[in-house]
């Protein structure tokens, strides 16, 4: 669905359904450098199971017009403008999980539930990664691709038949305008309000974490989980950071249970 936020073109995947005011709404927010298709299977499921789905492309990503937003708080405010439903839940992955957290803290009257997939706080990004992204060096895409999946992924089997997860990540990153990945990584790296925001979150929060996640290891989410009053966690064995692709069914099952 094409729409506008602050006069700029924006896009959200709706699973081929028109918004229906009688249905609950779930927004999906992707990670750094990616787009709405990160949630392909999961967002499609909810769109066909009684929810309004808005899997957004953040500004400067996918089909949404740039420039990208430089801060997590700015992305959270943008999201709350993009979603017009009075109340909604948010499923966020990685950077998108920080956006969900911040949106729940800043707009508690609107956000009903948050699911934080592959999240850590602080979400520090290595100097090597940041600097490669700043130079628009392909090495940044390599780091994103390799560190963004469990070590067994290149030698293992993709649950989605016939697909090569590394190739898909690289192809998506190659579509980015220069500077967008650096913008996102910098926003994650500099996000410093996590614990304060977590303390403000009163809605239920679910953490979905990958046991083999090298980018946001399970233990790196603990501080945040403890700071949110109503939080629960699901740890998925064998998955790395790209949980929606590496463990699509387990991720979906956790979301179904949480958003029931």
């Amino acid at each position, binding site marked *: 669905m094409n729409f506008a936020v602050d006069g700029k073109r924006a896009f959200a*995947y709706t699973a*081929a359904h028109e918004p229906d005011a009688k249905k609950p709404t779930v927004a999906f927010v992707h990670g750094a450098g990616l*787009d709405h*298709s990160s949630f*392909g*299977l*999961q967002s*499609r*499921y909810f769109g*066909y199971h009684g929810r309004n789905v808005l899997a957004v492309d953040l500004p400067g990503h*996918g*089909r949404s017009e740039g420039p990208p937003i430089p801060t997590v708080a700015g992305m959270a405010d943008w999201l709350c403008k993009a979603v017009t439903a009075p109340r909604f839940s948010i499923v966020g992955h990685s950077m998108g999980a920080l956006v969900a957290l911040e949106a729940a803290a800043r707009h508690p009257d609107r956000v009903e539930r948050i699911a934080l997939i592959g999240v850590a706080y602080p979400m520090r990004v*290595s100097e*090597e990664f940041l600097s490669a992204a700043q130079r628009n060096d392909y090495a940044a895409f*390599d*780091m994103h*691709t*390799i*560190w963004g999946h469990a070590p*067994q992924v*290149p*030698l*293992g*089997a*993709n*649950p*989605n*038949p*016939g*697909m*090569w997860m*590394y*190739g*898909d990540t*690289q*192809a*998506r990153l*190659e*579509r980015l305008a220069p500077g967008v990945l650096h913008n996102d990584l910098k926003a994650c790296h500099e996000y410093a309000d996590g614990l304060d925001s977590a303390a403000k979150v009163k809605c239920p929060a679910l953490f979905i974490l990958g046991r083999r996640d*090298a980018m946001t290891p399970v233990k790196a989410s603990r501080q945040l989980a403890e700071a949110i009053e109503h939080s629960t966690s699901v740890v998925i064995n064998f998955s790395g950071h790209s949980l929606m692709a590496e463990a*699509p*069914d387990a991720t*979906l099952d956790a979301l179904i249970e949480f958003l029931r």
Partner: protein
Amino acid sequence: MAGPKYPGFDTLALHAGQSPDPATGSRAVPIYQTTSYVFRDTEHAASLFNMERAGHVYSRISNPTVAVLEERIAALEGGVGAIATASGQAALHLAVATLMGAGGHIVASNSLYGGSHNLLGYTLKRFGIDTTFIDPRNMDAWKKSIRPETRLLFGETLGNPGLDVLDIPAVSAIAHEANVPLLVDATFTTPYLMKPFELGADLLYHSATKFLGGHGVAIGGVLVDSGRFDWEASGKFDLLTAPYEGFHGMDFEEESGTRAFLLRARREGARDFGACMAPMTAFQILQGVETLHLRMPRHVESTRRIVAFLKSNAAVQKVIYPELPEHPDHALAKKLLAKGCGAVFSFEIKGGRPAGKTFIESLRVFSHLANVGDAKSLVIHPATTTHYRMSDADLARAGITGGTVRLSIGLEDPADLVEDLDRALKASQR
């Protein structure tokens, strides 16, 4: 964190796409010889059918053994994914049928495998898809042949029979300027000798029957997508960017820009045309892929030795191989095919059709048959087989003479191959 590193080609050739079987621990790829898969419950069934969950429904659409081959070839090529098909011809048909219907147009190299030429030049024409064949070395011809209804540019990485090297960087630039993708048949080069996606191609396919299998026991094809072509920005591919009634109103590009082509190819092409690969075939081809990186250097090394032998033989008029300085694509081959120009090539024997016939019948190690890319050395005499109905004048137009012989160099002791050729050449000149 340590610096990131991708697994090497050899490791991917052995592992990509398969973890030890979770049910049995089997290290080898199990042959899932099944047509269908039991659903956990009705909800699970519905979500698999509607693409809300990953998994297998029916082996015409996907199969776990076949999926290993698909993922492995996608990994070796650097694509987003692949679909294995009943043959290389089925892969070409699937690519075309996913991109266009009646009224569509293709610009293709005229230096193609005969089967591809038949499909594009005769059969698809019957279904309203037109093809303009051009000299692949003529960049102006590529450009000038593109029409508003053109949806695809197509060539072979190494053409038939003159081993024209397709200038993929130049032809893909022309394709992209016109907002259409470039598809290449990469059968003769395999991902070991060339990575077409790194050079600018958008889609590729293999006749897996040839070097990927290498053993000559199974017919199959694999269609691979780079995921790099922007269907939405092109504005020419409604089949991928508009809701499709045949699959719940799905807009494939909205689902995923990088996976749109393969989504439609699998959800429509595999479903409706049904030219799928059997699990046993996938297993057999996987056995070949596991040693591709060991076989290809040997194929190339032996080919070079035999090319050198033929070049110096008095019974040989001409040898056509891009590594030779007199080949028109020699410089391009050095740039695009640094690891070698493969193991299939032609030469012309002195004495025309009769000499060619005697030569073929005198060989003992080379097998006379219509295939290439086998571990065993193969030979064919186009003037008495694949092109036997043609007059000498028609043969000349196709770049073939009565004395043209095509060889596919296998993995035997190269000294035995040279001896076999030497004896047959002598016989041909008596």
